[in-house]
């Protein structure tokens, strides 16, 4: 019988809270280019080291180095930069508009723009992304009309979702962007089912699922991975580890000793851990996983290691629960700056073009906002009230028909 000492309940704590010095000790960041690239068609059992490293391509000098450096055109990189910048500027603008009461709610993806943008550009038009609320850059990379975003954010008459859904919870089928909802994690399994359907139909489409690192604690996450592993679903399943879940640090979702990518091992699928602030690394990992999925070898779990530089949403103040300067000390840098530097380094971009792009995008956003404001902002305009009663079922039943009459519309 073991010696019985008195037990103690362990409650994990983040390395720093407000007033304490920022502390990223223990965060091991391998050199860009130092991590091996297994054959994407190889055997999962030979890749169990991958979740414990960190795939990085862009080095300090802005060069793309190592076996993961992807073969992508400067054009694609510029498209990516544009989408990321557009996302950043749009977020800033809309955050301010929320403060003015023009929308009820807003969420930024500051610092995480590389992920959606790179994946959007690497995947095909028919592929389907099952997003979280922090993947706006996917839509930006596919030129989703800004006015649609604005109209939904203003919940006005032209809201493409007809006034039924919260701002930021978009749906854009034609852009490969599945319907968002407030419930965390509950669409991860839809991505797997969608991918299984594509395989069932002998199609060539693949699915992309996202959850935040906090959301990995939901049962849905596990159930989706179980299905993905068992049926070899052609899906890329991503955990965006931005270190925070509202006020809660990542250590409340998973102990520090392991990684989110390591969860893959228990489902028999490869797990990659990737620098999410490195546009090229995101491209490379996505391409790797897509190649594997297309080869009928099933899913890959990718942990994108990144940092939520802004608050969770318009409803919280992050300086209440983490050091005010934590974002600026994030060791993996700003994804926009890093991609910009790379493009300049390879001679495909310069400061002047960057400034011009910024000005152009700002004007596009302002124009869209003006157009949306002309239709109306929150409470000033809304879709026809009849839309409240439509779409519950394909055909309305007597209850909503009667109730609509009762409301007199």
């Amino acid at each position, binding site marked *: 019988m073991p010696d019985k000492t008195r037990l103690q309940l362990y409650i994990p704590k983040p390395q720093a809270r407000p007033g304490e010095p920022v502390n990223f000790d223990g965060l091991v960041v391998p050199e860009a280019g130092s991590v091996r690239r297994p054959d994407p068609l190889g055997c999962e059992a030979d890749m169990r080291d991958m979740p414990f490293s960190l795939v990085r391509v862009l080095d300090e000098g802005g060069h793309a180095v190592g076996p993961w450096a992807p073969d992508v055109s400067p054009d694609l990189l510029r498209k990516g930069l544009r989408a990321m910048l557009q996302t950043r500027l749009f977020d800033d603008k809309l955050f301010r508009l929320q403060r003015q009461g023009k929308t009820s709610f807003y969420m930024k993806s500051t610092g995480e723009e590389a992920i959606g943008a790179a994946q959007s550009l690497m995947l095909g038009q028919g592929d*389907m992304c*099952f997003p979280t609320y922090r993947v706006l850059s996917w839509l930006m990379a596919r030129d989703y009309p800004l006015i649609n975003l604005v109209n939904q954010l203003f919940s006005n008459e032209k809201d*493409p*979702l*007809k006034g*039924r*859904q919260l701002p930021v*919870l978009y*749906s*854009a*089928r034609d852009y490969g962007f*599945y*319907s968002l*909802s407030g*419930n965390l994690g*509950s*669409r*991860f*399994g*839809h*991505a*797997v*089912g*969608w*991918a*299984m*359907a*594509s395989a*069932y*139909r002998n199609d060539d489409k693949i*699915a992309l699922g996202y959850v935040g690192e906090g959301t990995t604690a939901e*049962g*849905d996450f596990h*159930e*989706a991975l*179980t*299905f993905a592993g*068992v049926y070899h679903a052609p899906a890329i399943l991503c955990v965006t580890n931005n270190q925070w879940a509202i006020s809660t640090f990542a250590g409340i979702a998973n102990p520090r000793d392991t990684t989110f990518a390591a969860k893959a091992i228990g489902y028999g699928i490869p797990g990659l851990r990737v620098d999410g602030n490195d546009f090229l690394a995101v491209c490379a990992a996505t391409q790797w996983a897509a190649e594997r999925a297309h080869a009928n070898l099933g899913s890959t779990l990718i942990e994108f290691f990144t940092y939520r530089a802004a608050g969770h949403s318009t409803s919280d103040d992050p300086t209440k629960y983490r050091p005010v300067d934590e974002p600026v000390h994030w060791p993996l840098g700003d994804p926009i700056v890093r991609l910009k530097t790379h493009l300049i380094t390879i001679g495909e971009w310069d400061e002047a073009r960057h400034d011009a792009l910024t000005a152009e995008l700002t004007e596009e956003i302002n124009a869209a906002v003006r157009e949306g404001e002309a239709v109306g902002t929150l409470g000033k305009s809304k879709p026809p009230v009849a839309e409240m009663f439509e*779409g*519950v*079922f*394909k055909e309305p*039943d*007597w209850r909503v028909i009667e109730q609509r009459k009762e409301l007199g519309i």
Partner: protein
Amino acid sequence: MASMNMIQALNNALDITLASDPDTLIFGEDVGYFGGVFRVTDKLQEKHGLTRCFDAPISEGGIIAAAIGMGAYGLRPVVEIQFADYILPAYDQLVSEAARLRYRSGGEFWAPLTVRSPYGGGIFGGQTHSQSPEAIFAHITGLKTVIPSNPYDAKGLLIAAIECDDPVVFLEPKRIYNGPFDGRPDQAMKTWAGHKDAEVPEGHYTVPLGKAAITRPGSEVTVLAYGTMVHVALSAIEESGLDAELIDLRSIVPLDIDTIVASVKKTGRCVIVHEASRFSGFGAELSALIQERCFYHLKAPIGRVCGWDTPYPHAFEWDYFPGPARIIRALNSAMEN
């Protein structure tokens, strides 16, 4: 026409659907090689192939999530949850996702899945193999809930459910899979053989969702029931000697309100019967609707005969089950006033 029990009728509905629509597929725990613990999917894998009818992990949430994703892609999945009691781990998927997808996406996506599940008591299944959770589905906007009471309806309603573009919870009263049950456990088991509703056309047909059946026309009192309780109520009515009108709701969402209201306006009296526990059960909605719409026609309080407000107790199955004696008492009390 062939004489089928409910299992055969359901199996036949699935067989026809798999054969005619390549976008339908079936999965669930033990439904593949084994054909389901109640044999409803028997031989379907062998006949239609491994990818058309296959085993799923023990993960009700995962099953329904995958089915929603398949539905969003364009398939028409039919999943089995082994017992209705085990739908609960998937309740969030049904409520927050399947039921809401069309509405929240402005019609861009929808989930035309059918969730089949053996349901109800009377088989000594104890707490977790006997429950009747229909009320927690009925309250959910965007979900349809169907409960057949005989082989003919079972087949026609199941095909209609699968063809429906909305998510449907299809609850199969397991006590009457093999024969009608009139609530008298001491009597010999009956089979479906010879029952008029066991005559099932061999080809494709549907029974529309939202249309009740008048199982027995009558003038003195209206009895509302569904599933197993249709048979129990019929037997109680016969024993009571009353000229009661028995309505088999067949689906509770959509609900055939017109048939119900017309009957109660005619009889002025109503008794509602269900196996589920009473408090906040579906009988409450029926009662509320009727008093709202037939207030001036009602001659007596609407009665409810339901499971008691306790969990489903194993050894007390027949004390718990709302059998003919309790229904007769309620009928008499409805007539007295």
